[in-house]
């Protein structure tokens, strides 16, 4: 379980997270929606430890980001996929995938390589194993990003707008991979601007505005007419998102 309790974060007096309470159970897929600057990435980065909250607690299973040992365990159990891929440009695609398993988890290089080939195969990129990230399209890069995360055999996946720099066709490639993960019961937190993506793979939707959680409801409720009529702000958010 991922559990955030009253998490607060400010930058130079500007409140970015204003008391976030969020619990994600094993097997859930939670989408975080919200306008630009709402604090979505900051939530994700509080979980993987890239951002240290000012106050409140972030727990993953029994581990806390607040202490070194907890953070180390959390980073082994919970992998992140980034909007801009953040691949290591000087390493081949397969080296990108095997680096952390070998260096952080202590997997035998031979086994890590075999696992990486299996992962590449599952996303249809096996023939690109020994190429470099710069030689791939955006959709292919992001599938490498997903493989890099999955190579950690994570219990949790954090996905921060992983399709927003991709065109629709590439997005579809990546969403297909996500659907496979949903079927396997992977626990995921998905930040997205794309309502279709949220709708097709998540079980719950969290709507964030100015660092606060406005609603946290089941996917079917979120997209129902009755709910949207009650929540005008969300309705207009959806209208403008669809208009893009």
């Amino acid at each position, binding site marked *: 379980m991922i559990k955030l309790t009253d998490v607060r974060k400010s930058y130079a007096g500007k409140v970015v997270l204003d008391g976030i309470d969020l619990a994600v159970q094993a097997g859930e897929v939670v989408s975080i929606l919200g306008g630009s600057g709402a604090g979505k990435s900051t939530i994700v980065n509080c979980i993987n430890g*890239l951002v240290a909250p000012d106050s409140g607690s972030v727990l993953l299973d029994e581990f806390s980001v607040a202490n070194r040992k907890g953070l180390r365990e959390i980073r*082994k159990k919970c992998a*992140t996929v*980034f909007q801009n891929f*953040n691949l290591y440009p*000087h390493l081949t695609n397969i080296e990108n995938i095997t680096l*952390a398993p070998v260096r952080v988890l202590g997997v035998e290089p031979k086994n890590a390589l075999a696992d990486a080939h299996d992962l590449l195969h599952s996303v249809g990129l096996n023939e690109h194993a020994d190429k470099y990230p710069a030689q791939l399209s955006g959709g292919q890069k992001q599938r490498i990003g997903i493989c*890099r995360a999955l190579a950690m055999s994570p219990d949790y996946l954090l996905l921060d707008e992983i399709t927003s720099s991709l065109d629709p066709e590439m997005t579809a490639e990546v969403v297909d991979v996500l659907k496979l993960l949903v079927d396997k019961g992977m626990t995921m937190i998905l930040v997205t601007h794309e309502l279709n993506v949220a709708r097709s793979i998540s079980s719950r939707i969290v709507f964030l505005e100015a660092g606060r959680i406005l609603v946290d409801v089941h996917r079917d409720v979120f997209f129902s007419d009755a709910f949207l009529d009650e929540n005008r702000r969300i309705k207009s958010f959806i209208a403008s998102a669809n208009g893009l």
Partner: protein
Amino acid sequence: MSFLSDIGPFIPALWDGFLTTAAVSAASILGSFVVGTALAVVATYGGRIAAMAATIYIEAFRNISFLVLIFFFYFGLPELGIFISAFWTGVLVLSLAVGAYVADAISAGLTNVQGGVKDAATAFGLTTAQRIRLLELPLALRVSLRPLGSLFVNLILTTSILSTITLNELTNAAKIIASTTFRPFEVYFLLLILYSILTYLCSVIVHRMHVRANRFLAT
């Protein structure tokens, strides 16, 4: 023709000088690279005091006359009971001095490494040391190779100053030959060519490395 017959007997001496210059250059390039990398890492990632010490070192050595430094080490150290050969004094001083410039070039590369790469490495649980060694330094070096190339060319040219501490390198050999044959014009012309060969070789090697290392990097 008569120049060739005049200079013929001195070719072995000149060749020896050439080899000495090449050797002192190669050892100093290696040394300055090690010194510079270590300084850059400490200046960039070290704690406040260590980083400050590294920065002071870098600034200090960039503002000291090389000739004075070489005299200080070669004539000063024996007074303290430390005796090193002219060759190794040269390597030591060149490594320490050029290392300061190398540190600057590599530091610039380190600060240019994309934040995204660091974020990914951190989020995936790599330690700071692993991150520096496996990702940030290799990426920084790709950017720094070109400026390092000019530093190393300069280093090769600077080795001629080691003739002042009696090292029998190329310039010293040429001096002796010029004063014996009374043909300074031809001898020093030859010297120019020999230095050019070394620096050209250095440039070509660094350029090759640069192209190879950056082959598949997005710009």
